[in-house]
């Protein structure tokens, strides 16, 4: 008995040590990964010193400029820029032998010359191990002993710091992002409160049709996917659409989104519609690292976005365009802005004041807390020929101007808020008013969008809101293209990097004059026109 109890005394502390050691080991691993990530993303060593490296013949780099992320990107999937291949360095690509080439590079199935992860395999190489990878990082030689490109810095790293980086690379982009399963990819689309039911339905109809075609509703669609059915090179996955409907005040939206996400994680938010504010949605996306893929919003957030990409800055772009326009006309003495409590309008007013800056011009903001005919007509009554009147108002409110005389001076309307040339403005006002127009002009647009319009007709859908429906269609088409290119690397960071690269090349059926992104760019259309109600431009292309 005695000896048994003595034995038990010895076991208890051992168990305790083991129980503590597991989390200790896990947290130590997590800390090592964080340190590795800091070297990779920020170019900062565990000591706090800056990462330093030398590019043979091209000089020294340090800190953020030397960070791996600069060229290999956050996902580690690399890029192709100007014929310069930056190969993928995410775990699987380094620690497996590199095959000769992918079958889709046989010319028939080539998806694009800028697909670093496909090209990166196109010359064979033995797999790296820890030691050879440290050598590549510090001395610039690959496992076969040949020199890496001069663009790849030779880093000055201690063995232990180099090992942190090696360990970080080992796990980088090894698993698909949340929302991706063996046979499906989950997406959600967000609808904020207050969106008119027919607009909401129009957007959802576009998305649902697009998803059902993608999911092999037609045999042809499956056949097109054929090269990717090969299990080695990406498998066919069905797309699942979830509608995340928000209710109540914006302060509660983030909690609602988190609850939706707990029920079903999604790979990305796709399209979506928000009229007033979108800030809580973007905040959710940044916090949870969920891509927010081209929603149709009037008031996006212009700072702090990595995971949110937009077609344009909406009313904020309009405000900056108007500032540029009015700044060019020295004749305006007073700028009268009329708006309601609408957050988009308030945001536009703030952006306009900031963009105009300190000038001799007087800015008067007239806020209608309740909109009725009398109050609105009084707010615009005293505008003179030397004033510019700016109406940050939505369609229904504009209709209340019926019966009022248009002022003798300039009148500007937000095309985004008013519904562009379809705004229900009284006829007398239409001749006088100009639209701040961050879209392609109607005539040119009808050519660009002809494919989209026939798609709508084919799927039995009516045109309700061209911008919203065309945006939803394009968001889906861009997603489809990107997911096809990504093959098995269904990683959220990589999705955004692909968007940055691909949009620079594509002619797309869009509402916009030109769509273009690049590294760190998050707003694809960057300008617009001052347009008349007949759809002609009164200005050239304005980029504020």
């Amino acid at each position, binding site marked *: 008995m005695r000896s048994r109890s003595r034995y038990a005394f010895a076991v208890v502390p051992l168990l305790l040590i083991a129980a503590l050691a597991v989390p200790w080991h896990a947290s130590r691993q997590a800390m090592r990964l964080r340190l590795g990530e800091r070297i990779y993303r920020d170019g900062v060593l565990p000591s706090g010193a800056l990462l330093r490296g030398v*590019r*043979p*013949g*091209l*000089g020294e*780099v340090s800190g953020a*400029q030397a960070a791996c992320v*600069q*060229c290999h*990107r956050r996902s580690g999937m690399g*890029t*192709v*820029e*100007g*014929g*310069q*291949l*930056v190969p993928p360095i995410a775990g699987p690509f380094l620690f497996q032998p590199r095959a000769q080439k992918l079958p889709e*590079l*046989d*010319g028939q199935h*080539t998806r694009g*010359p*800028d697909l670093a992860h496909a*090209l990166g395999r*196109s*010359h064979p190489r033995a797999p790296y191990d820890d030691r050879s990878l440290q050598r590549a990082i510090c001395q*610039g030689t690959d496992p076969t002993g*040949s*020199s*890496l*490109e*001069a*663009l790849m810095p030779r880093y000055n790293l201690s063995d232990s710091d180099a090992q942190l980086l090696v360990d970080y690379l080992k796990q980088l982009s090894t698993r698909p992002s949340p929302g991706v399963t063996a046979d499906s990819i989950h997406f959600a689309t967000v609808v904020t409160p207050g969106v008119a039911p027919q607009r909401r339905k129009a957007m959802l109809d576009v998305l649902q049709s697009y998803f059902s075609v993608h999911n092999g509703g037609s045999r042809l669609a499956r056949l097109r996917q054929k090269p990717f059915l090969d299990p080695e090179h990406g498998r066919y996955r069905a797309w699942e659409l979830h509608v995340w409907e928000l209710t109540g005040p914006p302060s509660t939206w983030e909690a609602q989104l988190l609850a939706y996400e707990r029920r079903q994680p999604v790979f990305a938010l796709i399209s979506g519609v928000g009229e007033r504010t979108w800030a809580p949605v973007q905040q959710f996306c940044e916090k949870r690292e969920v891509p927010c893929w081209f929603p149709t919003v009037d008031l996006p957030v212009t700072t702090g976005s990595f995971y949110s990409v937009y077609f344009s800055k909406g009313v904020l772009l309009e405000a900056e365009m108007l500032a540029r326009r009015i700044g060019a006309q020295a004749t305006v003495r007073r700028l009268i802005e009329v708006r309601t409590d609408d957050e988009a309008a308030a945001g536009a007013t703030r952006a306009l004041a900031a963009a105009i800056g300190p000038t001799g011009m007087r800015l008067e903001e007239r806020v209608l807390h309740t909109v009725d005919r009398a109050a609105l007509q009084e707010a615009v009554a005293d505008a003179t020929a030397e004033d510019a009147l700016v109406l940050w108002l939505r369609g229904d409110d504009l209709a209340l101007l019926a019966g009022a005389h248009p002022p003798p001076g300039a009148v500007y309307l937000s095309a985004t808020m008013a519904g562009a040339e379809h705004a229900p403005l009284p006829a007398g006002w239409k001749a006088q008013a100009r639209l701040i127009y961050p879209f392609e002009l109607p005539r040119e647009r009808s050519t660009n969008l002809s494919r989209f319009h026939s798609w709508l007709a084919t799927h039995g859908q009516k045109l309700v809101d061209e911008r919203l429906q065309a945006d939803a269609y394009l968001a889906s088409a861009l997603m489809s293209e990107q997911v096809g290119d990504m093959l098995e690397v269904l990683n959220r960071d990589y999705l955004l990097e692909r968007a940055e*690269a691909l949009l*620079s*090349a594509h002619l797309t059926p869009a509402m916009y004059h*030109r769509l*273009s992104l*690049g*590294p*760190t*760019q998050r707003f694809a259309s*960057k*300008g617009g026109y001052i347009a008349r109600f007949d759809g002609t431009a009164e200005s*050239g*292309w304005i*980029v*504020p």
Partner: protein
Amino acid sequence: MSARLVPLLLALAAPAYAEPQRATARYRIPDVTLVRADGARVNLRRELDDGRPVILNFVFTTCAAICPVMSRTFAAVQRRLGDEVHLVSISIDPDEDTPPRLLQYARQLRARPGWSFYTGTAEASLSAQRAFDAFRGNKMNHVPVTYLRVAPDAPWVRLSGFASADEVVKEFRKLRSGD
């Protein structure tokens, strides 16, 4: 094999320390208006023909891999050649690269007077890129090229690839001495 892939795969097989390829050419500078980072609207031809020797490249400010290297090379060239030369960087992403953005980019690079940055309409930038045979379909396909010209009536020297500051300065000195 797609024709577009061939140059890439050739590039993959290229040795690591490729020296820039040198060629001379006479480019017809288009009569276009560009906007300098200080906001001035200027004629490209007059900017280039002001009598100073010119070293020119095409960049964009959000470019991740190629332009930072080229821009750092320009910064080093400016430190060494100072007022001897007019450095010219023209944006190939003019909608994004507004004059204030270019100013910010110049500040980051510690560019001094004598190194000018230009933007303008997409059409104007395109016509400049075409004139210098630098246009490659879209901005992500742009290639690293450095152009040098010692006098308005002299031909341009085109250095394709990543020319180091040493190589650019050496080429410049050679051209100046009339070799």
